[in-house]
């Protein structure tokens, strides 16, 4: 992909981000409830004090003024102050972001590692016992409400067997030195095996809970596209060439069959990011999703706006990366 085309693609994202901003702003301003009232919920305050608070929160300005102010500041990377934390929104989000990214990436990895082999096996044994087991088994993933399944996992593995921790991202004693803020990465960079193990132990159950529904979807996509690919002449030809089964399935078939899987995985990142908030609550995971839901309920407008913008940006970038990967896998669309 040429640099100018890359730039063009990136420029195309701007209207999407603007649209997202407008919608969030509109939604939040139409939502009944007031952050100042929420902050002082069930506590005493005089009308004058509430007015001061609303002024300090910037709520006494008209909507268009607020929107214009948000926009002009946002393009400069300033998303304002988080109303309840009294710190810059960017800082509050940045603290929570690594955990969410780590969890989402782990869930994505888990679902890909589970879905692709299962999808291939199911397609190869189409209609057979393995196909049915894989299909029905994977459907369990998509059929369970995540929060309920998460609590069940937690009761079994953390409370009954005590194999894994109940909540959090890492134990204090096992913390790696902060280099990037990503625990797994930092553990690796610092060569701290104990930290890595501890971080992975904390990560395992949330990642499974979050990744399972996606794994089910991806498995179905892989299975279907694998079935399609396996009927292609080039697979017959590869067989006629006397290649090993592993090479035929693993290279000839999979390289073609993965295209739809990647597209769907990128689209499903949206639900993965959304699913975070449920899983994070259950596992006490210090991520962004929980913060965003709390912020919606507290009417913490600046934080919600910035976070949704970030989600949209992530989504758009993930899909952009998927497109790039697509061109690698599929030489025909290389430009």
């Amino acid at each position: 992909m040429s640099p100018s085309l890359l730039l063009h693609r990136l420029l195309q994202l701007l209207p999407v981000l603007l649209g997202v901003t407008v919608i969030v702003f509109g939604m939040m301003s139409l939502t009944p409830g007031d952050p100042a009232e929420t902050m002082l919920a069930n506590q005493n305050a005089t009308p004058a004090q509430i007015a001061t608070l609303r002024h300090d929160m910037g709520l006494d300005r008209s909507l268009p003024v607020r929107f214009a102010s948000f926009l002009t500041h946002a393009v400069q990377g300033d998303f304002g102050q988080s109303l309840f934390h009294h710190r810059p929104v960017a800082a509050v989000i940045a603290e929570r972001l690594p955990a969410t990214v780590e969890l989402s990436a782990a869930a994505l990895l888990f679902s890909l590692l589970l879905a692709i082999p299962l999808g291939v096996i199911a397609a190869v044994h189409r209609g057979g016992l393995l196909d049915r087991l894989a299909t029905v088994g994977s459907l369990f993933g998509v059929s369970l409400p995540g929060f309920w399944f998460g609590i069940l996992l937690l009761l079994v593995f953390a409370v009954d067997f005590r194999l894994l921790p109940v909540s959090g991202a890492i134990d204090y004693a096992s913390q790696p030195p902060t280099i990037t803020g990503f625990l797994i990465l930092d553990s690796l960079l610092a060569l701290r095996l104990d930290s890595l193990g501890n971080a992975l132990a904390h990560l395992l159950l949330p990642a499974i809970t979050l990744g399972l529904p996606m794994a089910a979807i991806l498995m179905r996509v892989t299975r279907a596209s694998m079935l399609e690919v396996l009927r292609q002449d080039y697979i017959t030809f590869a067989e006629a060439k006397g290649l090993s089964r592993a090479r035929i399935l693993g290279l000839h078939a999979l390289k073609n069959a993965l295209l739809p899987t990647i597209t769907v995985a990128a689209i499903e990142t949206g639900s993965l990011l959304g699913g975070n908030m449920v899983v994070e609550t259950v596992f006490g995971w210090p991520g962004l999703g929980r913060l965003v839901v709390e912020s919606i309920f507290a009417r913490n407008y600046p934080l919600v706006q910035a976070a949704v913008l970030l989600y949209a940006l992530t989504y758009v970038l993930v899909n952009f990366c998927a497109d790039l990967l697509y061109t690698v896998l599929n030489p025909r669309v290389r430009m």
Partner: protein
Amino acid sequence: MRAKTILIAAAAAMAVQLAAGAAELRIGFTLDPLTLDPGNHRSRETESLLRTMYNGLVAHDPAMKLVPELITGWTWVDPQTMEVKLRPGVKFHSGDTLTADDIVFSFNRLLKPAALDGQTSPRQGLLGPTKDVVKIDDQTARFLLTEPWPVLPAMLTFQEVVSKSFTEKSGPGGLATAENGSGPFKLVQWRRGDSLVLERFAPYFGGAPDIAKAGNACIDRVIIKIIPENASRTAALLAGDVDIINELPAHDIRTVEANKNTKVMAVNGTRTFFVALNNTKKPFDDVRVRRAANHALNRQLIIDKLLSGRAVKLNGVMAPAAFGFNAELPEYTYDTARAKALLTEAGYPNGIDVTLDADGPQKETAEAIAALLTQAGIRTKVAISDGAQVRARWASNGKREGDMWINSWGNGSLDPTDIFEPTLQTGGRGNSAFYSNKQVDDLLAAGGRETDSAKRAALYKQAQLLVNQDAPWLFLWLPQDLYGVSARLSGWSPAASGWINLRDACVQ
């Protein structure tokens, strides 16, 4: 293979913990602090956590009696001037000595407009008519009021003292993420949304001498893990991951008690639960209907079943432990015949149809109340919305459209000014019943000014009686605060204030 590696690594991690954790206490707590700045929040949870690191001028002893903490005592120079004498030798975690300058600085941050980097402290309202705090000498400061406000010492329990030099040094917003209190523990790390790690502060001044066993903390390190989901928090306790959890749900009491390594601890709370009845709209504009509602509800049944008996019935607004509590208020006994008679008398022989508003956390209770009221002829529908939405609907300056709202009001100071005035005075911010009784208003105003304790108590008792007769609310109960603790914990007991006082906690 991967799973095996993880298990080995997890085991290794646990081993590390055990070696280092001889005197480490872990707490499962519901919410992350919003900020570490004691002057810039209105969150009870944040305050509970900050109180492990910061001290106030005044504290509560286990019996909720006011005791001086950073000061040796307070004296009223006149009804509008209170003088406090600083306890000598109190050290901040930075090693600096706490002086009157710090007190003046801390309170003026709260009082003065735009004192927090251009913003006004949201805690300003908690200091009522206090207009200024001035230094007399290094050990003495005075609170100047615009009108008599005897509840000031009780209200001072909500404010913590920060270091002037540290605050100025750490710059705008600096206190939001850094801590320099004078409490028994100092902050080592705050991993946002995940945990707070505290360590014992050796030069701690020992705390209020009026609270037994003043001295240094027993444990070396505290790890406060944030676990918002109730079931997960209980699970963490049962799994031995934490030693104390707050907000133990009443229905988990049995499970926690059945586990040999855990037990339940309770303390009488300070939060009054009630159903606000819209006094300005049919049918609850009629006192007979409001009384009928009070007779129609079997409160004891709900307390026994939903709250596992861990609450006391209330016939008014005040908690039994609060100042001026009127223990002789008549009770609206559970009596459906009486309720029906009152309804008929008010012109509703066929009962009434009403809606009970509630937010998510109150759903179960609201449904139970609605079911019981319905059985008694007050056919009640429940409407659940998110908290901000219900509050907007019931704002005192709102449209007053609702029928009933299940609500609660905290009273950490255990003084009527903090609960009676806002919820039942005409136009009060929390007066969601839109109740207005001139006599009550006058009594509250007088009580707010009265400096003689006995007279003041009498005024409030009289007001409680009037409210009881007017029944602006469906009176409910005052629940206990429940905690789950592990058997290896000793020396700790929960406080009615909601603070997690960890100074005396020890672990085996």
